[in-house]
């Protein structure tokens, strides 16, 4: 790290943090992917995790995933909450026996000295009802702050994981705030430069937070969204049917995209408060059914373990 220029230091630069993590996990044999080009609520939804976690084939990947949580928008007024933020996602399948050590070393790589920081693994069982997924693991604490989620996937898309994948999710903004010592996300130094060359998180994202909050809470076209939900749901089923070739499946990923679309549309509707409590459950169930069907189909593809 000493050869890095100062503006790449993860303690000073948001992008420096991302690049350091990418490099570290690349060294552990991960393929470094780019964000998935769909709106998702978490890095787990990226097919590189959600689908690759299913089936017998080994897999190691790391990537940044922009995560959309329409309900969490605060019009740019809350220093800790955003409706769009970044997750750094790592998946290792099967999990190596020393995954905890690898994780701790990644913290050291971004400048967290375990001789002065108190790192703890605190029980946190993870569940994602729309993905039909659950696992056991921890919130990883650094001096009382949650900096990552650490999960051993047990089930994804309703299918038992065999072998189990280990998943690490770093909340990048929160981690960067800690490293940079700032109290507001918007004060994060994005590019690590100073003076008039410095670009802050505010400059990059504040306007988006304000606009999307207005959209998510006040103006999103609910009629269109309800229609989109139905269309995406129907399309997902249609593609799965069309791709079904008996022992093989030929069109899983497009069907999965539509399931993701339905999931995001549901989140938007939920943010607008137009889904009642009882309906809510049934929407979640509908998305889960799509994801489950996709998961079952995935097992009939090469990625899911079928010989080429």
């Amino acid at each position, binding site marked *: 790290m000493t050869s890095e220029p100062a503006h790449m230091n993860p303690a000073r630069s948001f992008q420096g943090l991302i690049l350091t993590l990418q490099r570290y996990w690349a060294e552990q044999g991960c393929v470094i992917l780019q964000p998935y080009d769909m709106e998702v609520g978490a890095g787990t939804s990226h097919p590189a995790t959600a689908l690759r976690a299913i089936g*017998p084939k080994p897999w190691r990947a790391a990537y940044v995933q922009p995560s959309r949580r329409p309900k969490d928008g605060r019009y740019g007024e809350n220093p*800790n909450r955003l409706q769009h933020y970044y997750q750094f996602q790592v998946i290792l399948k*099967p*999990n*190596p*026996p020393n995954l*905890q050590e690898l994780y701790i070393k990644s913290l050291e790589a971004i400048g967290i*000295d*375990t*001789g*002065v*920081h*108190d*790192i*703890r*693994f*605190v*029980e946190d*069982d993870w569940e994602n009802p729309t993905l039909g997924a659950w*696992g*056991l*693991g*921890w919130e990883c604490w*650094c*001096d*009382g*702050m949650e900096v990552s989620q650490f999960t*051993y996937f*047990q089930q994804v898309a309703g299918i038992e*994981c*065999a*072998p*189990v994948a*280990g998943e690490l999710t770093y909340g990048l903004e929160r981690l960067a705030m*800690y490293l940079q010592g700032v*109290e507001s996300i918007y004060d994060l130094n994005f590019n690590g430069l100073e003076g008039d060359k410095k670009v802050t998180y505010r400059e990059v994202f504040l306007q988006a937070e304000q606009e999307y909050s207005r959209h998510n809470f006040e103006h999103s076209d609910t009629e269109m969204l309800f229609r989109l939900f139905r269309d995406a749901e129907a399309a997902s089923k249609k593609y799965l049917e069309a791709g079904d070739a008996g022992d093989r499946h030929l069109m899983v990923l497009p069907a999965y995209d539509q399931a993701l679309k339905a999931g995001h549309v549901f989140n938007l509707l939920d943010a607008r408060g137009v889904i*009642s*409590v*009882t309906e809510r459950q049934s929407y979640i169930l509908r998305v889960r059914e799509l994801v489950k069907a996709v998961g079952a189909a995935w097992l009939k593809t090469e990625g899911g373990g079928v010989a080429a």
Partner: protein
Amino acid sequence: MPDLLLELFSEEIPARMQRRAAEDLKKLVTDALVERGFVYEGAKAFSTPRRLALNIVGLPVKGQDVREERKGPRVGAPEAALQGFLKSAGLSSIDEAKIESDPKKGEFYVALIEKPGLPTQEVLAEILPQIIKTFPWPKSMRWGAASKEPGSLRWVRPLHSIVCTFGPETEDPDVVRFEVDGIVSSDVTYGHRFMAPDAIRVKRFDDYVTSLERAKVVLDADRRKDIILHDARDLAFAQGLQLVEDEGLLEEVAGLVEWPVVLMGSFDESFLEIPPEVIRTTIRANQKCFVLFDPRTDKLANKFVLTSNLVAKDGGKTIVAGNERVVHARLSDAKFFWQTDQKTKLEDRLEKLKQIVFHEKLGTQFERVERIAALAKELAPIVGAEPALAERAARLAKADLVTEMVGEFPELQGLMGRYYAALEGENPSVALALEEHYKPLGPSDRVPTDPVSVAVALADKIDTLVGFWAIDEKPTGSKDPYALRRAALGVIRLVLENNLRIGLFREIWKHARPFVSLLSRQPLHVTGEIGPDSIDEFIEFARDLKGDLESREGAKTIVMLANCFSNPGNLSSFFADRLKVYLRDQGARHDLIDAVFSLEGQDDLLMIVRRVEALGGFLETEDGKNLLAGYRRAANILRIEEKKDGKAYDGAPSRDLIHAHGETEEKVLFEVLETASRHAREHVNREDFAGAMKALAELRPAVDAFFDKVTVNAEDSALRENRLTLLNAIREATLTVADFSKIEG
């Protein structure tokens, strides 16, 4: 005698599971040993976030030899039978078997099997893998490459290594070798994750504990708790503050560290404007930190105590600073919720309760609030509350569920309602009731005394009980997911500890009515009151409906509801059972409770209890004991004669007959029975149960004299019959105070 040391070293075990897991480990291993005939001197189990450990001392080197005689076939049995016997008994020839004879079976073979005891190590190597593979974790998982195959080892988090040694104190112990899913037992463990991660060789428990201490691991959770508690108290004391102690938090924190290092941090004083309970809950729930009390200001201090797992190179400065940042962010959130919530009045939140489902069959919180408000208003005069205030409090009671603060910290429900109501200028009793209506939460929780609180608390609990009864969700065995036993105990304590006179079951029946319309989703057209006298009519009505409206959902629901209340296991006997448990805890005799409960029309808990008390006191006296003896004699004779004659002698005795032909003692008894019963009834009507019992005691000399001098089974059948009805009159007289037949001893 040799000792066993076992350690299961894993990734971080959830704090809440550690203690139980250690105890389970101890029980499973010692049970398995005892089952195989091993005795031991002592066993102790330990846990840290990363290990379960077990030390069993005083085990024998090998198991006991076993001699067993096995019966075989008779002499001269077919060859196949003989061969089978030889094989099963492990004999090589039939000559090795003894021949015994039996008068019934004749001569038969007996094999003497001698099994020498197995070496303990071998037994352990067989037992332990099985216990590890089937360990009862509340939640367990698979991991790693092995999880590709079905049936791979499950543990709470990945299991990394196993120490297992066995041997006497004076020599180097052996490693008990076994393998579980690729993990081979050894004598190697590891120290603190950051401060001493290297491998450590251990021999037996003593050096294991000291090696761990050197490697910054305190094995014993209770010792970790002691360290945290004392260091925290000392830190507080040094600042002139007091630690707000919290056993649950202490237990949890001790399960999050192997080497506790207690530090103190502070937060901005301006956060002290937030209610102290909120500060404490925020810091506790999110940060697992203790708060501190400042006796000089009589308020919380702007300080907190955290427990880290590290002797940091900088003395903990960085750790404290990091924790302070998080506490600051959390308290900022709390302050934001506190301020935001104040912008919307509780009353204006009621509409939102329509969105919250209380239970899918029992409707929304809004509907529930409507029912509770109506009931609280009705109960108000009975408990001495202003009906309008009780109704108001009930209406606002659940409004804080939709505040930001309670959304974030559900455990603050009620309390936040009280704070916000007070700020909004609600009547103080109303504000108090918003918090207190959830009480009492258990046998040791405080019972509210403010009449408004009492009215709403009763209404809340009665609504819960009747509702879940109506949908047939009663507690069964140890399962009570809706805490209905707690609710019933709550009602009992509210009534008794406030000395309330209330026709409880009448109120309960009445409250069945809104549920009938809710569950049938149609208005119930029953005219008149459904009171205790008419519950039978209600049930009849339901049965009638069933005939007419078989196909209609509503009718079915009504029938179900009626059945719920009328069948065995109904709500009033549930209450009776809860009351028994309560009174038993207070030292009352359960048979006396039965004796009072089996009287007709017992609807007033307070009077039931008074009667039980009076009965207990009465039976302690000479008069009481003798009257009970007299009652029993009468009841026994009656039982025998009634059975013999196949008829009941429940008519009134004839005065004329007695005066014409009866003996003196008979005449006296007849007269005394009449006056004593009358007096007893008068006292009961005045609710003077001790007086009633005393009045009954007037019977005693007459009963004694009657049994002394008069032959019940007279030859004259008319006289005999009349004397039997006289005995029955004794039985009847005692029923004015209790059912003496239920009294034991």
